[in-house]
């Protein structure tokens, strides 16, 4: 019975933490994560996995929904079960360190030990297995830099997908786009 109560308490704590950006950051920082000022999590706190104290994030980052930081390699379980020498007490673990101004696209995974530089865009669904340098866009499985931020800027402009709708309310934005695309 007591375990049910503690479980429900934990669940409530988590759902409260997921309520808004400030709550998410506060919860994760209390669990030992380092999160810089201005960083916004559109993913929920589950993204930080079972060892949030192994994750360091710089300032002004933005993480989309479904992102996951994986700080341990569970595959070592197979070696343990097979009785490889010296493995039975071992965890395979490495911290993740992110620079400032990093955007991580929806559904991307960051693997153990990865360091990401400053001003980086990680594409949706990418799996980042190796370090990424500063000022790049990296996509794919495994994630590889495909262009610099300057090239990204040129491409975004050239594609004609840019609209001055930042800060509009949902209704204003809907009206704006319904007009743009009905023409």
């Amino acid at each position, binding site marked *: 019975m007591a375990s049910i109560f503690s*479980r429900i308490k934990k669940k409530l704590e988590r759902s409260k933490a997921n309520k808004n950006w400030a709550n998410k950051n506060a919860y994760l920082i209390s669990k*030992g994560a*380092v999160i810089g000022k201005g960083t916004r999590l559109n993913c929920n706190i589950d993204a930080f996995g079972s*060892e949030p*104290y*192994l*994750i*360091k994030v710089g300032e002004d980052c933005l993480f989309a929904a479904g992102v*996951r930081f*994986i700080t341990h*390699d*569970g*595959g*070592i*379980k*197979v*070696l343990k*079960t*097979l009785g*490889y020498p010296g*493995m*039975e*007490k*071992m*965890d*395979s*673990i*490495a*911290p993740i*360190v992110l620079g400032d101004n990093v955007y991580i696209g929806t559904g991307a*995974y960051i*693997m*153990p*030990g990865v360091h990401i530089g400053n001003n980086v865009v990680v594409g949706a*669904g990418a*799996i980042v297995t190796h370090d990424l340098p500063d000022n790049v866009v990296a996509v794919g*499985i*495994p994630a590889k830099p495909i262009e610099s931020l300057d090239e990204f800027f040129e491409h975004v402009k050239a594609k004609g997908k840019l609209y001055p709708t930042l800060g509009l309310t949902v209704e204003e934005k809907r009206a704006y786009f319904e007009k743009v695309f009905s023409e």
Partner: protein
Amino acid sequence: MAGLIKKTAKKVKRILANRDWNSKIKYLTERGARIGNGTRLNCGVEAFGTEPYLITVGEKCLFAADIHLITHDGGVAMLNFLDYFGEQHMDSIAPITIGDKVYIGTGAYVMPGVTIGNNVIIGAGAIVTKDIPDNVVAVGVPAKPIESIDDYCRHLQEKGKLFPTVGMPYEQKRAYFEEKFSLNKKAAKAEKEN
């Protein structure tokens, strides 16, 4: 109203099934899945999809969160709409067989008809479209074997990512790693200097 009660009952059943390892296995076994002894599911029962009775899992496997074992190809619906098979509409289905001591990393998908051997590690986010032999690590889209598990063991030791923290309670583990990597200490120091 009756429909709503039925739906709610189903949901509650699922939530209860997902509460621990034993109840997940019980729920799936009742629905026809064959799951060996010592297999642990960190994923929810949803991972087994709509046809759990088409899935066979060996002993001592471990499945991470958010994996999916897909036993049907939904794309055939398009052909059905277009009457490719005449009046009789078809399902495209194939069973999945997973051997003993298999680890499946978070977010991986195993596709219809795939057989995975014994002692296999599937990387996070992999999409397994073809059979995987025994004793390998397979990653990527589509998943391909990249090394034997002997090589995997050697690489782990070389990389220095191994720590003797298995079985530690959460707080002790946190203290151990905070000391080891001092991610926090640096932050605390920087804050003080500011």
